[in-house]
């Protein structure tokens, strides 16, 4: 069935087809015969997640609703919702700045506002779908054990995606009007990163300052929060009660969110075309670069390659925003380090996994950009340099940045506790190396300016990389207490890396 050409339905079908093919080619890495292997992996993942869900939340299926529960659920909803806002802002920015088919659409006699309305709705749906792999197993387990009303969780996720997108589109357009098309791209990315990180970090810093532990739950259960919490029938609890499957809050939340998005689209859609055209002019702007030093430096091909990677990493706005987010995540451990520096209460053990996790994530981001984002692969390949140098230079560049970021923290830690610093260093090297290797296996070269397309194609790599980082963080945490006990989590982390190798497309 094909809708009438030029209508919103017709565009929606067009978009759906593109998204589906994009997704299919992403998971099959362009080869149909991989489909079965991927299907098996998905089934295993789904089964595993249901087992985890059953083990962790199964017994809460018949729980009684009280204030601490509502606070806990509301906080989780708010946290995931902020992450969605952050993701949605990235998607919206991309919708304006990516040029793939925009020129065709803007040049056609179709109303641009219609296309963008469809795109924004698609993004809203995408945000909800993205949460499903993680949320669905929990909802399913609760529904199976506690009753069908728990399925209301699906409605809530949809409402969250829709409201997050509504807020993101409003924020992005506000940025457009306030600071212009040229700066919006970078600022939107930074804002997205900060929104995503701020909530977690704020809670952790609060928890550390008040209790000296790094669990984010502590502050939520405190008496201070409970005393200020509104009564059970307050509207503020509606999202949490919708998640618990109460019908009228669910309908209310879903209706309100739909209205919100429709309102946001109606408000900003008529000018979408103008914004996209303004964004198109940005690419042509010339950036003068301050000239350093008078002459060319003595160099070797390897050093030239490494130097180039560093210059390019430094000049990448996306990377700057990502690194900024990683730095923000390092604030809580830094606060913890500072707080426990003189009382020496053994909080260092908590620091180790946090540092390792952050190193893995940062290395993954850097490596992905350095390895996959090669603007001139043919130039480097046609240079009289052995092929292994090219990859090695990229890895060296990544590890150099990691060292630069983590050395100061490790140094302070070493003064306080050499053992923990040693374990953390080992974990950081392992996590960074694993993340870099995963990016190597999943590399798909493309121009840096098309960075988003690369990110989509390597989403599987991103997930594996996150699991690997978690694995190494756990290993380091256990190793800090007892080296021998760390063998088991270490093997799990290795298994994740080996699994990535197995799933990676073979080099052509």
């Amino acid at each position, binding site marked *: 069935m094909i809708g009438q050409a030029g209508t919103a339905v017709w565009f929606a079908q067009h978009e759906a087809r593109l998204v589906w093919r994009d997704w299919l080619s992403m998971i099959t890495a362009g080869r149909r015969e991989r489909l079965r292997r991927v299907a098996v992996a998905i089934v295993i993942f789904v089964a595993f997640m249901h087992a985890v869900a059953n083990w962790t939340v199964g017994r809460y299926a018949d729980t009684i609703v009280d204030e601490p529960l509502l606070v806990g659920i509301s906080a989780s909803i708010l946290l995931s919702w902020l992450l969605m806002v952050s993701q949605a802002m990235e998607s919206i920015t991309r919708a304006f700045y990516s040029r793939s088919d925009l020129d065709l659409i803007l040049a056609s006699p179709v109303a641009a506002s219609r296309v963008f309305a469809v795109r924004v709705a698609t993004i809203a749906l995408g945000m909800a779908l993205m949460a499903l792999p993680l949320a669905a197993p929990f909802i399913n387990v609760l529904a199976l054990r506690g009753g069908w009303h728990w399925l209301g969780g699906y409605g809530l996720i949809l409402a969250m995606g829709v409201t997050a997108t509504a807020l993101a589109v409003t924020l992005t357009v506000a940025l457009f009007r306030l600071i212009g098309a040229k700066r919006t791209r970078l600022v939107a990315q930074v804002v997205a990163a900060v929104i995503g990180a701020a909530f977690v970090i704020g809670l952790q810093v609060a928890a550390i300052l008040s209790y000296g532990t790094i669990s984010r739950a502590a502050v939520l259960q405190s008496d201070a929060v409970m005393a200020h919490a509104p009564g059970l029938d307050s509207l503020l609890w509606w999202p949490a009660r919708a998640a618990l499957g109460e019908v009228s809050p669910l309908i209310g939340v879903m209706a309100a969110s739909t209205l919100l998005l429709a309102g946001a689209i109606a408000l900003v859609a008529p000018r979408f075309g103008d914004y996209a055209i303004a964004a198109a002019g940005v*690419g*042509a*702007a*010339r*950036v*003068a*670069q*301050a*000239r350093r030093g008078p*002459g*060319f*430096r*003595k*160099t*070797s*091909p390897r*050093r*030239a*390659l490494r*130097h*180039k990677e560093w*210059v*390019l990493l430094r*000049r*990448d706005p996306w990377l700057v925003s990502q690194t900024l987010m990683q730095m923000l995540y390092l604030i809580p451990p830094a606060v913890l380090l500072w707080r426990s520096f003189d009382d020496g209460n053994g909080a260092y053990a908590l620091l180790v996994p946090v540092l390792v996790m952050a190193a893995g994530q940062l290395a993954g981001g850097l490596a992905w950009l350095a390895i996959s984002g090669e*603007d*001139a*692969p*043919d*130039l*480097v*390949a*046609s*240079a*009289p*340099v*052995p092929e292994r140098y090219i990859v090695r230079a990229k890895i060296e560049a990544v590890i150099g940045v990691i060292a630069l970021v983590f050395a100061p923290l490790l140094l302070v830690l070493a003064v306080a506790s050499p053992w923990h610093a040693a374990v953390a260093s080992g974990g950081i090297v392992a996590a960074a190396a694993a993340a870099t290797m995963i990016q190597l296996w999943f590399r798909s070269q493309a*121009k*840096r*300016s098309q960075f988003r397309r690369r990110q989509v194609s390597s989403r599987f790599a991103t997930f594996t990389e996150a699991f690997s980082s978690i694995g190494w963080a756990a290993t380091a945490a256990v190793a800090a207490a007892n080296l021998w006990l760390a063998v088991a989590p270490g093997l799990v982390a290795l298994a994740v890396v080996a699994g990535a190798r197995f799933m990676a497309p073979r080099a052509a």
Partner: protein
Amino acid sequence: MTHASPANPSALEIRGLVKRFDRPAVDGLDLDVRAGEFYALLGPNGAGKTTTLRMVAGLLRPDAGTIRVAGIDALADPVAAKRVMAWISDEPMIYDKLTPYEYLEFVAGLWAVEPAVAQARTIALLEWLGLAPNAHERCEGFSKGMRQKVALAGALIHEPRVIILDEPLTGLDAGSARQVKSVLRERVEAGGTVIMTTHILEVAERMADRIGVIAHGRLIAEGTLEELRLAAGKTADGGWRGGATLEDAFLALVAEQAQAA
């Protein structure tokens, strides 16, 4: 017009080159280009021109065959072969976030050119190509012609003996195209070898010492413009069709090949 003499060493010598993707792209190709020659490779779309040159540049492994660049076995010792060669594709291989000046320093570093020499050449090349005013601006805002000129400067900075170009004039305006052509011509006059593919027959006609025509992954005709016109002018029964331009000759040769296939 031609520098051909038996004493001239070979700049490029290809024997029995084969590359299959889902179908044969290059199918037992033999090709000789002499040193100091301007050689143009013509052929219809999908004939295997780019695939051939990518294998010469070391960007693609052939399934079979040998490639010698300036006497060096390019498959056995790719690094040595790359040292004397430059590759320029139709999509300029430059970095958006680097300035032309930084780009040339990087390329000079890859080919291990002495820093002082590289810097002097950089300044001269940027001046010569009219890029001096933009030497310290990032390439991301450059037009296609400027980008191609930056890539060309990168190829010349290490003074290669063999320059290989894949459709270097695509999307260039008349001024930039003329500049690129004169740069190439000067390289040949200085004793360098230039091998390029092109769709613009007029370019091949005006600039090339010899022209090779590829179809279905094989060389179907080769020679000077005069020789190609003669070959295409002959009818099947040995008669004479009459004076032909290169376009006539090219279309006749390709049509003949299609009939034979």
